[in-house]
């Protein structure tokens, strides 16, 4: 058995697939590619596979990660080619690497870079964003297991730029905390902008995850 880290992308065509459906889809793709999954032990064996920071429904991405175990040895290129031939259109394996120990630890991923498009009414400019980031605290209502709670998200916004705008749509680039310590979703940042920036009324938004990072490092 060998373990592999896969980096992959998901485009518009497959962005509405939930995490569970994604896992099932990937199992089927591996079966089509005739890659023998390692099955877990126990009462109800399932293929061994971990997805780092599962993507929210509706979000596209250029930099997702997962770890899988297969019975046998495969070159990264072979693995990539076989999976790409078997995946439904919209998914793409970008690269693969065989891992022995813990040189790549997907649980250490702690931030994500997003590109966010927001349709809005009112106005927004770079100064608004600078003022927004200068607020000592940015309090939004955040859902957690125990219910909806107030939360200060300011410490978890590592970077936020307005990268373009026209009358109706603004584009942002943001780097936010993900992971077990704190998980900040772009929609919470948009909620906060609506609350703290006067005259900015966001309506619809579209999110693209550019990368998943461990500190400043993108693994593959």
């Amino acid at each position, binding site marked *: 058995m060998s373990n592999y880290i896969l980096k992959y992308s998901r485009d518009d*065509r497959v962005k*509405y697939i*939930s995490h569970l*459906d994604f896992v099932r889809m990937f199992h089927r793709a591996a079966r089509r590619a005739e890659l023998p999954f390692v099955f877990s032990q126990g009462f109800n064996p399932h293929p061994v596979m971990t997805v780092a920071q599962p993507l929210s429904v509706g979000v596209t991405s250029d930099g997702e990660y997962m770890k899988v175990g297969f019975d046998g040895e495969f070159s990264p290129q072979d693995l990539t080619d076989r999976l790409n031939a078997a*995946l439904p*259109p919209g998914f793409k394996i970008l690269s693969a690497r065989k891992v022995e120990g813990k040189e790549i630890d997907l649980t250490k991923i702690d931030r994500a870079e997003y590109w966010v498009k927001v*349709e809005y009414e009112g106005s927004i400019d770079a100064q608004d964003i600078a003022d927004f980031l200068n607020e000592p605290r940015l309090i939004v209502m955040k859902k957690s297991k125990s219910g909806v709670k107030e939360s200060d998200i300011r410490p978890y916004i590592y970077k936020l730029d307005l990268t373009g705008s026209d009358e*109706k749509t603004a584009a942002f680039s943001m780097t936010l905390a993900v992971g077990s310590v704190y998980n900040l979703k772009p929609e919470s940042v948009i909620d906060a902008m609506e609350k703290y920036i006067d005259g900015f009324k966001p309506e619809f938004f579209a999110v693209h995850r550019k990368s998943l990072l461990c500190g400043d490092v993108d693994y593959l």
Partner: protein
Amino acid sequence: MTIALKDKILSKVTKPTRYTGGELNAVIKDPASVDVRFGFCFADTYEIAMSHLGLKILYHTLNDRPDTYCERVFAPWTDMEEQMKERGMKLFALESGDEVTRFDILGFTMQYELSYSNIVNMLMLADIPVRARDRDESYPIVCGGGPCAYNAEPVADIFDFFMLGEGEELIHEVTDEYIKWKKSGKKNKKDYLEAIAKIEGVYVPSFYDVEYNADGTIKSITPNNPNSPAKIRKRIMKDFDKTYAPETIIVPFGEVVHDRVMLELMRGCLRGCRFCQAGYIYRPLRERKSDTLLSLADKLLSCSGYDEISLSSLSTSDFSGLRDLTDGLLDITEKKKIGLSLPSLRIDNFSLELMEKVQKVRKSGITFAPEAGTQRLRDVINKNITEENIVRSTALLFSGGWTNVKLYFMIGLPTETAEDVEGIADLAHKVLDTYYAIPKEERAKQVNITVSTSSFVPKPFTAFQWEPMNTRDMLIEKQNMLKGAIRSKKIKYNWHDNKTSYLEGVFARGDRRLCEVIIRAVEKGCKFDGWDEHFKFDTWLEAFDELGVDPDFYCTRARDYDEILPWEHIDVGVTKKFLIRESEKARAGETTPNCREKCAGCGANSFGTGVCYE
């Protein structure tokens, strides 16, 4: 730099992958490169539609033609419908996302009567006039097929034509004619309909006039066009082994009802249960060869990555190559770690042994369908299963470690008495006694018996097509009677509300006077009638009332043999004479042997193939 309308909508609905398409093996074409854009419509949710075998077959056979782009069109769930209406989005096809309003052909598969309201609703969402006569050449031709097409009179005004019987050849013939008509400038819709009316299996309802007697029964059904035959005969595939079967299968992202490879072993059934429409309309029985099936199984599993395969047929135990097939399948499933599910198997030593070998059968639930509680009534309906069979099979099951037995029955069958209803409870108790008769150490620790009843709905082209359906009050009384007769906590009783069965009963044997009622009911908000949470019985009754149509006339009224039935001009092979004979034998409590024991002379041998010539 805008966000697409569809994304705004999809962010607000449940299960968005119902609407996105893009699944593995879905066919994508350039619409500009084809002559025909065909919308294959299924008037229910994605999960149900994508479980339907017929859709898979016709979708791929149409898309194998370079000149045709067949896309799937399903009923949006109510949250999606609301969003679509709010944002001005019309009914769309899954593959391209394009509106279907100007497609060339929309073909509905009509699987159950309760989807009629959804058909109308889908046309409305597509902004297409509902009545065929209101659609000019700029709108799609709307056609229908499937089991409900054999009596499609309740929706006759809505459709341009119906296809009767199996569609593998027929759908190509009507598409060819469409292309000819389109290339000649699509001048007059009638020209196209006249051209296809000559094709066997095509029924153009507007080419027939229906007249009524003063008592509401039908006086005559007469062709009004020289191209339309007096009787429309269903089509079947003569050489079923060689009949087109897709070697690819779309793999949905979300879970659907039948999320697996399905192998169609055979068409038709040789049993002749007198209540069963499928048993008559798909005659004669035809089989595929085991080798053909095994090679198909291999291809479908490889191209899909599915980890489960199931056998599809009306009665798997009657498949003559069952042993070869299952041996071959077990080879494949063991090698590939794949589950095999075996529905509609009779329980005997062979099938038990088989189930032991199969991975995915959990030893919990086994289903029997005795359908009736006493031997007398089982003889009436020609259900070839005896109490002894059931007791012996359940004894085998219980000693083999099975714990749950489900028993399916119908109530409201012709000639049914209180004794028959109580017989259901007796039979369940006998099954329970069988469990207790097994020594403790040799049986499973617990036992659960579930009795389910559905309400019998008389269907066209069955021996019971003349019978009155029980009234709702009668059915409720019988349900209560049965509830009272079940004395053990180990026996659970499930029953259905019979309002939907009543409506099904009205449509099943309905005529053209119901078209306006259906349209009215949809205008008043009826849709998804097969879904309890959406079924609006009172609204339906209002619609009947407003249009002065008495639903009981269709449902609870007994017919004479010489009454002209709304489907009198349809020929399914099985003759009226045979059905009368079966009806008489039912009344006398006499059984009819199956096709392999002795041909009963049903008329289906006129197709020149199948079990009739074995």
